[in-house]
């Protein structure tokens, strides 16, 4: 059977854009990225689409499919209603470059601002460390992140309020959580979380968690524990009083 894909096309010189419909055959097991490739090969070779591994591991092909932020390579046509046109749009939180490709470069400027991994001295004379598996399970969950930026895309602080100067976004809160909870790390990012990374802007609507293709529990396992650390240090009245009298 055929399916209709309603794809956002833009003119990179003027920035103007509109949806355009493409009809293409849908076969068993196809994903949205297959359809986009087919359309490129058959009728629109200049259709811009960022992709790489086509296996859900590189996080390049993020888009909004029927309004839902998803990886195109992991969205099967069988999950969609093909009786209606399938809309495919670029991520809305980032500036458009062309068609389905957005300028995500802001994300790459955030990470260097976060205090880097700072390990304790090695445990053994041979320069190695000892860590128990149970102590790294949580960090390994966060390190599954493929940097698709879908969480950044749906975060209302970024998407609706454009607070990219004051807030690092869920991706980099998870990055910070992976460092803070790393058994070997000795750096302290708690004050920076409050003052520089803007963790207070997050009001735990969990939109980020709901779109994560790696199913990382971004809010419950990452952001909330970080918020607790910030609260313990900066908002605990007893501690605050003690700090005042002890300097």
């Amino acid at each position, binding site marked *: 059977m055929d399916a209709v894909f309603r794809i956002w096309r833009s003119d990179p010189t003027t920035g103007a854009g509109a949806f355009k419909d493409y009809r293409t055959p849908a076969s068993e097991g196809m994903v949205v990225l297959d359809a986009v490739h087919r359309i490129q090969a058959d009728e629109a070779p200049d259709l811009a689409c960022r992709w790489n591994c086509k296996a859900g591991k590189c996080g390049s092909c993020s888009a909004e499919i029927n309004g839902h932020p998803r990886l195109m390579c*992991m969205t099967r046509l069988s999950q969609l209603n093909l009786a209606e046109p399938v809309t495919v749009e670029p991520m809305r939180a980032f500036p458009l470059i062309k068609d389905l490709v957005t300028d995500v470069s802001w994300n790459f400027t955030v990470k260097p601002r976060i205090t*880097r991994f700072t390990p304790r001295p090695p445990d053994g004379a041979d320069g190695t460390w000892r860590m128990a598996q149970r102590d790294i399970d949580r960090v390994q969950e966060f390190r599954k992140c493929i940097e698709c930026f879908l969480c950044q895309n749906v975060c209302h602080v970024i998407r609706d309020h454009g607070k990219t100067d004051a807030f690092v976004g869920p991706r980099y809160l998870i990055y910070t959580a992976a460092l803070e909870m790393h058994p070997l790390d000795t750096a302290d990012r708690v004050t920076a979380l409050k003052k520089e990374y803007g963790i207070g802007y997050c009001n735990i609507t969990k939109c980020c968690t709901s779109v994560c293709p790696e199913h990382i529990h971004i809010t419950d396992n990452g952001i909330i524990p970080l918020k607790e650390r910030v609260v313990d240090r900066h908002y605990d009245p007893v501690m605050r009083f003690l700090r005042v009298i002890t300097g």
Partner: protein
Amino acid sequence: MAAHATYAYDVLVVGAGGAGLRAAIEAAKAGVSVGLLCKSLLGKAHTVMAEGGIAAALANVDERDSWTVHFADTMRGGQYVNNWRMAEIHAREAPARVRELEAWGAVFDRTADGRILQRNFGGHRYPRLAHVGDRTGLELIRTLQDYTIHLGVTVHMEHTVVTLLVDEGHVAGVVAYDRERGRFHVFAAKAVILATGGVGRAYKITSNSWEGTGDGHALAYRAGAELIDMEFIQFHPTGMIWPPSVKGILVTEGVRGEGGILTNTEGRRFMFDDIPENYRPQTASDPDEGWRYTQGDRSARRPPELLTRDHVARCIVREIKAGRGSPHGGVFLDISWIKSKLPDAEAHIKRKLPSMYHQFKELADIDITKEPMEVGPTTHYVMGGVRVDGDTQMSRVPGLFAAGECASGINGANRLGGNSLSDLLVFGQRAGQYAADWVRTQPARPLDDGVVSGAIQQSLAPFERGSTAENPYLVQQDLQELMQNQVGIVRSHAEMSEALQAIGALRERASRVGVDGHREYNAGWHASLDLDNLLVVSEAITRSALERRESRGGHFREDHPGQTAEFGAVNIMVRQVADGSMEVSRVPIPPLPDALKQVIEEQKG
């Protein structure tokens, strides 16, 4: 006239996968200025797809392991046509490269006493692969990426190199375009390190991402470097085969390392039917011994599913051809059977192979904890590449280095699983170190304006021809079909001679491809520019495979099924000669030093 460079660096690294990032780190730490070009966004390179692990003789799980065993395993797996110096360096230095990743923040799975856990893999005598579940490549690339961003390396994302600039035989820089705007940029550099990965996109069924178009191979070749071992292509035995749209996506060897078995439609474990003589002493005699091996019983020998990839791939092809294949034309790979051995098998599989579970569940509606997967061979890796000095990674073009998959030597005729990630680290580090040393003695070189404008003009030619000309996608598809069918797993003189003719015809068509639209992020234009590189590597593979009239490792000739001593003593080399044509020659392999010869002898049996 001299061209004006947009950017100038001491060392320019082309490619930002594992090898490129590791090279950039080393050069930056040595204090020279470093530029890094990525074809994609930073951190998206094909290295993220590596699943199983990094091979390094840490001896954390089995203290009998050492660099000598790893060296002997690598040479045996490569059928002894490896660059033995590279195999030696690799085995010696891999443990230090893995430990340093931990110091940079990598979080490997742990042993009970808290050290880096290692798993079994094909062709490795002892559990040797440091890993993170089945997403080791992501961990490696993210660790290197997060470390690199604090070193002052300038990263240029979504840039593709169209030509290397050479001055008096020395590397002088590159011309590249950026995808976002379609503008050309000239980079001056005293040294260029190619780390561009593989050539899988020359084939129809491949585990490689779109980037694997042989860019580094072709750039080096056109600049006067030599390519060796191009006939040796690794067809990974287990790629997904169903549904059609996912055909080729990798199914990690880790599935077999954790106890997964291969069966045909009759339910027979066919791998027990064909065990090569030189592996027989190390191979389990029955299924029970094989299972005990995967569970860490040190007295047991490995199951035949963990024989080398070339052999397993051929056995699978044989089953399919004999009509004993699975419904969609593959064989069965079953990990769910271990529930008869382990009480918590389902949770165990999900913990050990999370992305495989996820991949099959999401893309094929298959729950691998409950039912077998269908798998078949997929083009995975090229052992061949730029011929480099084993110690420094410099090619015969002064100032041009290569590391990782686009370089050649360490793997010989067949790569062992896990040796790729360690190769990236060991030789990426060396390339970075020696390139930094090199540039200290080199002057900045002039860039030839005529060459720069010629390269730009040629790159823009598809726009002049317009979309009524040849469609670049169709030319690429026809090339992939040709290489898959005629220069694939089973090869013959007749088919490959035809293929060579056909490649010539495709080159004609490629010279006529055209596109419409703007230069900004124009996928059809990018596909047009990739074609030339794909054609160079396809011709190199075909000519080299015609020349090697024997079967060895990843190269199987049905008209010459046996191995010969004559070809065991040479590497096949191609280079471009003055009239622009490709010359094929045989290069004798230098004799093994006695000490290494002794290591190999000791490890036999």
